[in-house]
């Protein structure tokens, strides 16, 4: 469509805008809206973006495509009155605890109420108070603040392909809820937190560990060590009046020291370390002729997603810990060695004493201080990552607390620190030094780029990058590039958003997607677009941060992880070998296991009446289901009936026995049968039956 629309008397050209709202924005008019996000489907629910079309109709501008010759007004008396009424109605059922709400400063409902001049709410609240959902380690839901705009619902299903939350019930009872009214912590939520980032109010917020961090900072017996993720430095300034994308690393370090952090390290060093380990893993796989692609595993939302939806791909996930966890691991190891060796010993001399001074032992000795590792992350899913049992050592987590950029900014504010005016500080060595590649990890494509540089691809002086990506999905959601490394051509794919990851993962499984490395980041734009970043009303902040981080990379003398001198020293002194060696596996690698989508579900099918019963559980979860578990179940039931064993068995259909790569999985008594068929199941049942009559029957059956 070409032509013009007259908006409030001004002719505005139509240049591919999908709706009038986008056109109004182009004409520098802020149309109020809760439910319109350009990256999501249009919903037209909040009824705030109303405009008057051709002097008569009033319609939601987000759902009307522009047409040549249209004339619209955006702020007539009638429109203002309807908008006010709609806001008043939304406020009536909104829990108005604004002074104590986390989102007070970034609440769109509060902002628009102020802008629209709401001074009084004439309607009384009709909704009953609903309980808060406190069951997730990463997010807290308060349905009493929800205005039902559906932004979270659409984000979760459209961008992330998860659909962990949806509308339930109807009319005045409607509520946004995980399946069966359960907690977000017991369903398939991957903790990306984008629901909280798009929420216009405080109905979903990240769970802040700020109070525990304050306590650690106040504890004279604790050394609190900070590690700062790459994407944080180009975003935190937004909370203090600096431009989005401005590199505030120096101010951030000073602020952390003023807050009382004993040491400040760069998670980008952990990124350099991840690159070395991951490239080692890639070449190891190539040499051994193992299956590729190798999927990155830095993004904890992607990891949980893969565990739930693509368990058969778990062997293809890099076993490298994320940079956050690697940092936690090496910080603890380093602090233990610092404490166990006397202060006079140089750190390299203590390298042989690894494992001698676990934290617990030192605390028992009463000499050393408690080490508290706090990560500052652009990410909400990192809160879940730090809680994973796989990422704990000696019973304590590698990282104690994961603060978001937003949460740290609030702590800085609370301490009264004037961030924007701070003089820059420098991070501590050795883990505070990172290359450009480590810093670029925070951008989508950054991990792939870092690996390319590590394996020796030259950086183009023009673009500052080694990879030239080609878009394969709109908006760069799926991009691919090729490099030559070790005499081979490697295809590298970068994926943003888990719905795109689903497309790529399915392609890998059905053989249509050929790739050697696949980088997945759940959040569009990469970590710079993480849900832990400052929430503002400004559009386009993520793009600014991307540029800022690219600049932070481009401005460094050392651009490839392999050139980091502290990394080489780390491998020489601490690992005592190359990437992928035994010590690096102990310190820097982890494992994954398939996970149920919904916890605590099974379908009882036969409940035997006998005293002695054999328990039979047939998995009908997604993966086993696709491998034919339904037929196995049908055959087992038929066989039980044919042989008259129904009193002596308890048969149930379960979801995910968590060994999905070997499905269909059936448990008989304490035994697990992989790739099961009915015959194998029955063969396992019969010896377990103690009842003589059954034993005789079973013998008769087996003799046939």
């Amino acid at each position: 469509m070409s032509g013009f629309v007259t908006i409030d008397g001004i002719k505005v050209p139509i240049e591919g805008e999908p709706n009038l709202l986008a056109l109004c924005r182009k004409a520098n008019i802020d149309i109020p809206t809760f439910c319109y996000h350009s990256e999501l489907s249009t919903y037209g629910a909040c009824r705030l973006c109303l405009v008057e079309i051709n002097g008569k109709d009033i319609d939601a501008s987000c759902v009307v495509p522009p047409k040549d010759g249209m004339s619209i007004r955006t702020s007539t008396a009638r429109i203002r009155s309807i908008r006010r009424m709609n806001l008043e109605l939304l406020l009536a059922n909104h829990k108005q605890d604004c002074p104590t709400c986390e989102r007070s400063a970034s609440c769109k409902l509060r902002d628009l109420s102020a802008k629209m001049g709401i001074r009084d709410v004439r309607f009384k609240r009709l909704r009953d108070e609903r309980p808060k959902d406190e069951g997730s380690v990463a997010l807290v839901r308060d349905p009493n603040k929800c205005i039902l705009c559906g932004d979270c619902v659409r984000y979760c299903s459209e961008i992330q392909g998860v659909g962990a939350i949806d509308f339930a019930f109807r009319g005045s009872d409607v509520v946004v809820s995980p399946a069966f009214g359960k907690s977000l912590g017991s369903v398939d939520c991957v903790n990306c937190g984008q629901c909280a980032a798009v929420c216009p109010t405080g109905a979903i917020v990240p769970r802040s560990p700020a109070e525990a961090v304050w306590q650690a900072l106040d504890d004279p017996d604790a050394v609190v060590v900070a590690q700062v993720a790459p994407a944080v430095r180009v975003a935190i300034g937004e909370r203090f009046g600096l431009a989005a994308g401005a590199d505030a690393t120096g101010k951030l370090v000073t602020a952390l020291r003023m807050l009382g952090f004993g040491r400040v390290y760069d998670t980008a060093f952990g990124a350099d370390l991840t690159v070395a380990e991951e490239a080692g893993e890639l070449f190891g796989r190539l040499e051994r002729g193992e299956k590729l692609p190798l999927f990155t595993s830095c993004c904890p939302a992607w990891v949980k997603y893969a565990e739930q939806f693509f368990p058969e791909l778990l062997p293809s996930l890099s076993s490298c810990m994320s940079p956050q966890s690697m940092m936690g691991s090496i910080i603890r190891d380093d602090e233990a060695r610092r404490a166990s060796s006397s202060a006079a010993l140089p750190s390299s001399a203590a390298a042989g004493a690894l494992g001698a001074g676990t934290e617990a032992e030192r605390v028992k000795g009463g000499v050393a201080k408690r080490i508290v590792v706090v990560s500052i992350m652009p990410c909400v899913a990192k809160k879940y990552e730090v809680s994973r049992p796989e990422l704990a050592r000696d019973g304590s987590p590698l990282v104690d607390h994961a603060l978001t950029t937003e949460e740290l900014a609030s702590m800085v504010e609370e301490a009264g620190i004037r961030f924007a005016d701070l003089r820059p500080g420098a991070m501590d060595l050795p883990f505070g030094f990172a290359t450009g590649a480590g810093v670029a990890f925070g951008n989508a494509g950054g991990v792939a780029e870092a690996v390319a540089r590590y394996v020796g691809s030259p950086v183009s002086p023009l673009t500052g990058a080694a990879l030239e990506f080609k878009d394969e999905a709109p908006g760069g959601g799926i991009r691919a590039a090729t490099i030559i490394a070790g005499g081979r051509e490697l295809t590298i794919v970068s994926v943003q958003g888990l719905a795109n990851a689903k497309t790529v993962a399915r392609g890998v499984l059905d053989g249509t997607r050929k790739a050697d490395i696949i980088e997945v980041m759940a959040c569009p734009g990469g970590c710079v677009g993480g849900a832990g970043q400052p929430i503002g009303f400004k559009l386009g902040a993520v793009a600014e941060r991307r540029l800022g981080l690219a600049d932070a990379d481009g401005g460094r003398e050392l651009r490839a992880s392999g050139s980091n001198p502290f990394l080489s020293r780390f491998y020489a002194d601490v690992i005592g070998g190359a990437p992928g060696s035994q010590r690096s596996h102990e310190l820097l690698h982890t494992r994954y296991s398939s996970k149920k989508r919904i916890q605590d579900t099974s379908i009882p099918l036969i409940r035997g009446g006998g005293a002695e019963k054999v328990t039979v559980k047939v998995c009908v979860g997604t993966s086993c289901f696709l491998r034919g578990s339904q037929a196995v179940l049908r055959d087992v039931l038929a066989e039980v009936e044919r042989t008259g064993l129904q009193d002596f068995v308890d048969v149930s259909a379960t979801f995910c026995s968590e060994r999905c790569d070997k499905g269909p999985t059936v448990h008989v008594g304490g035994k697990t049968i992989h790739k099961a068929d009915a015959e194998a199941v029955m063969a396992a049942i019969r010896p377990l039956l103690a009842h003589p009559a059954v034993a005789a029957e079973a013998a008769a059956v087996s003799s046939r």
Partner: protein
Amino acid sequence: MTLNAFAEARRFEAVVAVLDRHGRDPSKLIPILQAVQDEYRYLPEEIMTYVATALDVSPAKVYGVATFYGHFSLEPKGKHVLKICDGTACHVKGSGALVDALRSELRLEGKAKTTPDLLFTLETVSCLGACGLAPVLVVGDDVHGLVTKDEALRIVRDIKRAEASDGGN
């Protein structure tokens, strides 16, 4: 026991048959849930999770659809379902008092609709289209018109008595 041993398995097989009949098409979610409810008299959580898995839709979406329609029940319904019409005509003719009397007779407390022994479920429905007979009480498939409080109580007590003597067998 042996007679009913396969009841659960049969129902589950029926669910599988329903899914097959609809070609595991996510757009057939509603007829599938209706058929599942015919089997179970309600929609058990684990069966909804199974349906979600089979149709490749999220369990939250299935839950959303199941809670949207009044026809679907997420709790087991009683053996005898009592429906009191609370449409305009019946309401004016005193259906509220009928509800109160039956709730107290069945000892239903709070928002409960079904008795703990799963014998009775009491529901109110909007207009049944039999306004001339207001107030209307439907028990199973039997329609009772111009129902008085005493008559409603007698119907329920008769069922209770019949169930008690059945249970003795």
